[in-house]
């Protein structure tokens, strides 16, 4: 990791702290959390459920304010949603009255950018995620995996340097999930984004990431960081390699229930 330090830091958490005020008193979600994510790096965060992974992502995207500490994205502190971040949610959250193409162009419309000049780009993205021929379909006419690919296109349409992904494949079946992992790897290789990826699945985290961070139960802090040095592009068969299994076991034992 130290050898990476000359690279540009894209996301940085410094002594981050988050406390929720609830009706039953204060809930300490995140405590003294420190992570640095470098340019074009793919970092996954795993941890027991309810440990504040989604909270971490929401703070990064500016959806939630932090209680203390620092969050910087691309060098500037986060104080609200920013253009340089694309986000993929747990669910595809597509507008059911809009076609695939119009869903992808939603951020363009919101930012009042010229639709025509982005239409071509949207078509490129549709091609990238292998959805050609579906651009005029409504979300209800697509499978879950296809819907999530549309939401990935929507996150990429403004070409943000950073992509935040909140368990995007959590609701897909295992086979579709494996396909989506391969596809995401391919897209990441083409687009070269900095990715912060939240997941429950350890094999998924190892397969996709340059680095996997394990969080502790609430209040969350980093308990382990593991570098994954498998050469890219990775093959599904890599999951049966001894080293892959070793990393998974290492990570699993670090996750306390």
């Amino acid at each position: 990791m130290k050898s990476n330090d000359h690279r540009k830091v894209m996301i940085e958490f410094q002594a981050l702290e988050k406390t929720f005020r609830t009706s039953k008193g204060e809930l300490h979600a995140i405590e003294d959390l420190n992570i640095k994510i470098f340019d074009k790096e793919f970092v996954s965060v795993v941890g027991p459920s309810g440990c504040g992974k989604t909270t971490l992502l929401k703070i990064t995207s500016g959806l939630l304010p932090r209680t203390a500490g620092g969050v910087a994205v691309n060098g500037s502190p986060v104080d609200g949603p920013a253009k340089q971040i694309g986000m993929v949610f747990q669910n595809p959250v597509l507008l059911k009255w809009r076609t695939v193409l119009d869903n992808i162009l939603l951020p363009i419309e919101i930012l009042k950018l010229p639709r025509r000049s982005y239409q071509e780009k949207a078509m490129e993205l549709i091609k990238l995620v292998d959805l050609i021929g579906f651009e005029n379909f409504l979300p209800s006419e697509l499978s879950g995996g296809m819907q999530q690919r549309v939401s990935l296109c929507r996150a990429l349409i403004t070409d943000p340097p950073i992509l935040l992904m909140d368990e995007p494949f959590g609701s897909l079946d295992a086979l579709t999930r494996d396909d989506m992992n391969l596809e995401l790897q391919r897209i990441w290789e083409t687009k070269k984004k900095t990715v912060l990826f939240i997941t429950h699945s350890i094999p998924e985290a190892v397969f996709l990431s340059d680095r996997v961070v394990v969080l502790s139960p609430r209040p969350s802090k980093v308990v382990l960081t593991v570098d994954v040095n498998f050469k890219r592009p990775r093959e599904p068969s890599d999951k049966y390699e001894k080293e892959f299994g070793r990393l998974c076991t290492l990570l699993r034992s670090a996750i306390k229930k």
Partner: protein
Amino acid sequence: MDEKQTVKGLDTYTPIKGTKLAPFLTLVLFLVLWEIFVRAANIHPIVMPPPSVAFKYIAFNIPLLLDHAYTTMNEIILGFLLSVVVGLTLAMAMTHFSLLNRALYPLIVLSQVLPKVAFAPLLLLWLGYGILPKVVIAFTIAFFPIVINSLGGFTSVDPEMLDLFRVIQANRWQTFLKLRFKNALPQIFDGLKIAITLAVIGAVVAEFIGGDSGLGYLIIVSNSTLDTPLMFAALIILSLAGIILFGIIMLIERLSIPWSFRG
């Protein structure tokens, strides 16, 4: 492409033959049974005319009936449109200002539990005997389901959707137009369908109490002169008007939210 086979909704839904005719058949059956009942029981037309007599009456008095129907339609449509404008505006404001929501909600409920029949004479006193009090009474009944349904639709948005709109930096107005409003449309149309039938009731009740024309007025007058066929003729025209108005709303609904009729 394997995936093309997983696409849902490609097989178009074909209704069973005759499904579209079903409502007409029940109507015809109803009229036939009515005719048979009145004739078999030998009921005097002053008590209840058979449909054949009522329709004959309509045929011979078309200009009179249309004239009165025109008045009532005007009241219904104006009252309804007013309730749409006021209802949607109120619901929109209440969505964005929770203080307003809390302050107005009890008043809106109060306005609805207050019996309009008891309230109508007061309105006539205040607003005179022209078209205005009828429009206002139709409006006061019709706006309630519009406010309640729109408010429900505007506020029942998936929180993750709202997060999405914040992440892509949409402002309040964009979020309202492109998310909340669109999302609420099916519920708004449900409200509009209830509202249009209530507007019909409102206009007729207003005419009962203080009208000098309109189908409601015709019903009251025919009742006092025991001209029951005229009363039935007016009732039939009134129901036709109500059904046509309801149908128009349904048509607009189909055209403006096709996505909620698929799959």
